[in-house]
């Protein structure tokens, strides 16, 4: 029962909270009464069973709590007269009906560009993901007090600055959707290295978003991208050592996730989402090619080229160059990499150069490039991987 309860709570938190924020227009009050309603459910449901419509039960109970609180506050009582319904009647009525899904409104509010990015991320995880403050703090390696402060400040700004609780109108939607997708992808990337709970959470948010915005190709593109990346999570490390894609044990890839990722990609392509937006569809198409039995490097290089034109990102150019090396030969790849001077401070620029130089039989230059990468590397498995490669060069020289 406890596990079932916990699952039910997690499944409903976002929708329940969104409905309450929509109704009360007050994040703090909504969160407090939602918590009380969940606590009451934890007490009653094990005895009485889970109601037919748990979400509606939770919303009704929380609303009643809010009404009680507001009644206690006499100065506000007049403002909220519309809430003046007897508790029993309200509960009964709410259990019969469904309540509207306002998660999208909540998501757009939390990801409003007038909020700092770290606040957007924290608010999204707290309100839609239902993560507790200490869980978010742990995931982002900050103290609980710092994270609590970040959430308080964010909620205060939403209220004081008049950030609207709504889906943006058509002329604002493309920009605002980009911001939402960026927050979800940021959460995913935080989770990609070592904190899988965040990656799982990002995929949950992405899945909810495709349900809510079934006509947006980039939304499907992002979900596809995250699923396809995450499918290889178990194979990326072996005994704590980094394993390159070509050497990964395919038996460890999650076939279900790959299938789901490709289905989302198909949907995105069917919506003609390839050449527009933030490039998630293109990135997902590339990720899908990477999990084919034999990698089609010409196709991968072509898609990276398209993505580079779309994003003008030198990091994408680097990936393009690496694909070119496989598709057209090591020299072609090296020439392309050597043109990317703006990546001088980027670890993977030197690592990719080093790899091509090593394979071209130019060990002295390869070593210099590996050493530059080693100066910049942050993750321990990646450091060991590069050090191994340098040691391999030394052996060959002897």
């Amino acid at each position, binding site marked *: 029962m406890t596990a079932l309860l916990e699952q039910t709570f997690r499944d409903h938190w976002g929708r329940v909270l969104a409905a309450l924020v929509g109704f009360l227009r007050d994040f703090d009050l909504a969160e407090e009464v939602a918590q009380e309603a969940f606590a009451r459910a934890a007490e009653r449901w094990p005895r009485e069973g889970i109601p037919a419509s748990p979400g509606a039960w939770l919303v009704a109970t929380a609303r009643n709590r809010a009404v009680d609180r507001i009644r206690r506050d006499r100065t506000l009582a007049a403002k909220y007269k519309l809430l003046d319904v007897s508790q029993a009647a309200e509960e009964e009525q709410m259990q019969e009906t469904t309540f509207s899904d306002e998660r999208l409104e909540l998501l757009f509010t939390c990801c409003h560009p007038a909020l700092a990015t770290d606040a957007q991320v924290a608010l999204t995880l707290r309100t839609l993901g239902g993560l507790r403050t200490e869980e978010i703090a742990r995931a982002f390696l900050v103290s609980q007090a710092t994270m609590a402060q970040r959430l308080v400040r964010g909620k205060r700004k939403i209220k*004081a*600055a008049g950030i*609207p609780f709504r889906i*943006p109108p058509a002329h604002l939607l493309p920009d605002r959707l980009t911001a939402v997708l960026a927050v979800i992808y940021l959460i995913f990337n935080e989770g990609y290295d070592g904190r899988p709970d965040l990656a799982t959470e990002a995929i949950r948010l992405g899945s909810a978003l495709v349900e809510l915005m079934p006509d947006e190709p980039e939304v499907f593109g992002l979900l596809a991208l995250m699923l396809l990346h995450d499918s290889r999570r178990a194979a990326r490390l072996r005994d704590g050592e980094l394993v390159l894609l070509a050497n990964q044990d395919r038996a460890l890839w999650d076939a279900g996730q790959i299938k789901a990722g490709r289905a989302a990609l198909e949907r995105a392509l069917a919506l003609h989402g390839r050449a527009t937006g933030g490039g998630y569809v293109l990135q997902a198409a590339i990720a899908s090619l990477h999990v084919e039995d034999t990698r089609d490097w010409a196709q991968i290089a072509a898609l990276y080229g398209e993505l580079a034109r779309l994003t003008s990102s030198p990091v994408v150019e680097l990936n393009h160059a690496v694909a070119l090396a496989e598709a057209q030969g090591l020299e072609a790849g090296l020439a392309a990499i050597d043109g990317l001077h703006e990546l001088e401070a980027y670890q993977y620029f030197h690592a990719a150069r080093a790899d091509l130089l090593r394979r071209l039989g130019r060990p002295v230059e390869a070593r210099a490039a590996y050493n530059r990468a080693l100066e910049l590397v942050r993750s321990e498995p990646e450091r060991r991987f590069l050090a191994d490669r340098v040691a391999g060069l030394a052996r060959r020289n002897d």
Partner: protein
Amino acid sequence: MKYMLLIHQGTTPLPGSPEWERLSEAEQGAVYGAYKAINETPGVTPSSVRMQPPETATTVRVKDGQTLSTDGPFVEVKEALGGYLFYEADDLDAAIELAARIPAASMGGAIEVRPLAE
């Protein structure tokens, strides 16, 4: 919601300056036109005064009972306030949209949108 929009001129060419003279007549007309349209937008209360340029400002502090006056604005000249207006709007999105229409926002300056206490 009531907002105060603080206009920071930044490097925006101001009438009378050589940079302003380098703008074509059409460009100058567009700036005046845009400000006129903003001032006529429902909900907007334009400031009733015009400020002299920030170079003419004096900044005053009191330390140990002594008044200290220094030349120039409190912040850097290019960050100084050049004007303001008030806007009564439904929400922050509406205020941001109005702010984006203020010529200074796209000519080298920036607009700070500040909600007013009720």
